[in-house]
């Protein structure tokens, strides 16, 4: 398994380089100029000087090479410096956001907590409610519970979050006034009072996203359980005198979790990507919102870096899913 993991990690290197190049070239080809929103009164020679300062006069391959160097060498060095107090990255240029005039990574680190709290919490909540619902729906197929579960899952999956989000704001913020409609990033949890306030402002975005996630995962879980409930080994377990509880929660569940765990792992990168629309609706200034504003402001280094980080996470969690698969299913051996 270790050899397999290492081989996969090595194979990820050319994949990621290719992705980085594609993103870079696409952004380079895209219309738009970072100087476009500067005042027209700036004389052309000053404008040219500004372009040179941003490094835009260099040819594409040089800029791409520099970005790679900054992403893979300078930024990790900064992290090491930060953790261990070394001075590896001293004097090295970091990836700078054109929009914020500060290092891209610093901005990302500022935005990450909001996204992880809201979107990550929604994913965890979604998974935690989806699995029991899937199990119950499958063991009581076509029961009232299953019918309701199927209906709610269909609604949760097909109604977009920008609709449910706005609907919730209308009901719970505007009419009832129970929850704030805008997420306050400056809120620091210091005591019981502020903790409750944090819970209140998280409630609606978490609910909206959790409903969507749970709808999807509970369907997978149900299908996988039904698949396994019909297997011969279930009959064997019953013939051995195992109580129904053990048949379902030990024999069937262990087998059913194999494909579901993979689906859950593959969904994790999307958490880091933030929920662009939901973050907009509830004004959570997380990574999704950061990406949207960076695109609107032609902040190419920010867009490039964020997009590439999502690509890294996707490649990484694909590997995690495969390793988990091999770990859960003894029939799969990669070596």
């Amino acid at each position, binding site marked *: 398994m270790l050899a397999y993991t290492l081989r996969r990690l090595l194979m990820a290197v050319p994949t990621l380089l290719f992705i980085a190049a594609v993103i870079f070239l696409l952004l380079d080809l895209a219309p738009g100029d970072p100087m476009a929103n500067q005042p027209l009164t700036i004389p052309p020679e000053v404008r040219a000087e500004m372009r040179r300062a941003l490094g835009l006069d260099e040819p594409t391959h040089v800029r791409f090479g520099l970005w790679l160097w900054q992403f893979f060498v300078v930024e990790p060095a900064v992290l090491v410096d930060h953790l261990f107090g070394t001075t590896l990255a001293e004097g090295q240029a970091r990836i700078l956001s054109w929009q914020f005039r500060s290092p891209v990574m610093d901005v990302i680190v500022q935005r990450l907590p909001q996204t992880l709290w809201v979107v990550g919490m929604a994913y965890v909540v979604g998974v935690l409610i989806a699995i029991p619902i899937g199990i119950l729906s499958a063991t009581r197929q076509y029961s009232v519970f299953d019918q309701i579960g199927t209906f709610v899952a269909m609604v949760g999956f097909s109604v977009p979050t920008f609709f449910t989000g706005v609907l919730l704001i209308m009901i719970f913020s505007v009419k009832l006034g129970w929850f704030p409609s805008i997420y306050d990033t400056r809120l620091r949890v210091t005591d019981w009072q502020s903790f409750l306030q944090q819970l209140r402002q998280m409630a609606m975005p978490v609910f909206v996203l959790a409903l969507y996630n749970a709808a999807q995962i509970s369907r997978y879980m149900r299908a996988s359980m039904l698949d396994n409930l019909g*297997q*011969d*080994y279930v*009959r*064997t*377990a*019953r*013939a*051995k*005198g*195992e*109580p129904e509880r053990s048949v379902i929660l030990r*024999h069937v569940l*262990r*087998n059913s979790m*194999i494909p579901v765990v993979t689906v859950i792992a593959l969904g994790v990168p999307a958490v880091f990507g933030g929920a662009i629309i939901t973050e907009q609706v509830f004004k959570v200034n997380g990574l999704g919102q950061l990406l949207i504003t960076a695109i609107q402001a032609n902040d190419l280094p920010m867009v490039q870096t964020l997009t590439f980080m999502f690509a890294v996470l996707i490649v990484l969690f694909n590997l995690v899913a495969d390793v988990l698969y091999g770990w*859960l*299913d*003894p*029939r799969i051996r990669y070596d």
Partner: protein
Amino acid sequence: MPDRAAPVLDVRDLRTVFRTRAGDIHAVNGVSFELRAGELLGVVGESGSGKSVTMMALLGLVPSPPAVVSGGPALFDGRDLLRLPEAELRRIRGARIGFVFQDPMTSLNPVFTVGFQIMEPLRRHLRLSRRAARARAAELLALVGIPDAARRLDDYPHQFSGGMRQRVMIAVALACDPQVLIADEPTTALDVTIQAQILELMAELRARLGMAVIWITHDLGVIAGIADRVMVMYGGQVIEHGPVEAVFARPTHPYTRALLATVPKVSGERSRRLQAIEGQPPILSAPPEACTFRDRCPHAFETCFRLNPQRYPLGEGHDAACLLADPGLAPWGRPEPRVAHG
């Protein structure tokens, strides 16, 4: 030696109906039989004749709904299996009545080790400690002829061949020293050499442990070799039953004869085509009111379409559910033994 006369299992008029959306299916229609201590009862019939459902229904293993089990009693050790609460029945399943299923490739749980699966009933029914259960599991694996048993406990089912897996299934079924072992076509999915090995193993284990066995199969050759008594099923009913010698020497029901005629001969002319019974077994949407074999029977006459024959005794514990066995019927009306076509 156990008392051969005393029945361990005494089933009367067992019925099972599957109530599906597409309509009712009467799978078992009044099956009665008894199983004596230490004997091997062969149950023969085509697919869909109700052999497996009968045995599963006894132990509450048919999913309900859609299945509705009625009739009875089915006495095991003085208790009616059909009316026991689920918790009591569970204490009998796997502990006092063991099951071996047809396909060893899919009957073991792929994600648990073989050792875990053998230890499960030991720990649940006999409340053995982990250590004691492990020791017993190794003994059982050795008993069913798996070499290097103690080490193989930690292997997963996919690391065993088909025949070895069926041996593991037998070890699971035998774990708690059951009085009855129900083997549902245990050799059908195996190739002939492995079949022979499993049969030999079963004969040996039966001699050593002395449990009664119900062996479900459609292989008459197997039954002739190992069974004490044989029960032929058709349309969810027992249509012929008796000591194995009597049934094979004097098959009386036309279905039994047809079944025997389908067995290919090793000697004799080679050019002969394999015999087959024309048609399909019936799917019953109502309890049978006439002979279920009438449409495929070469001897069917008018009464067969009106009456569902009872089981007529033929002597020596042999009986057959065919109007032609009715002692009131004139000798000329009895069917001729089926002559092989040239």
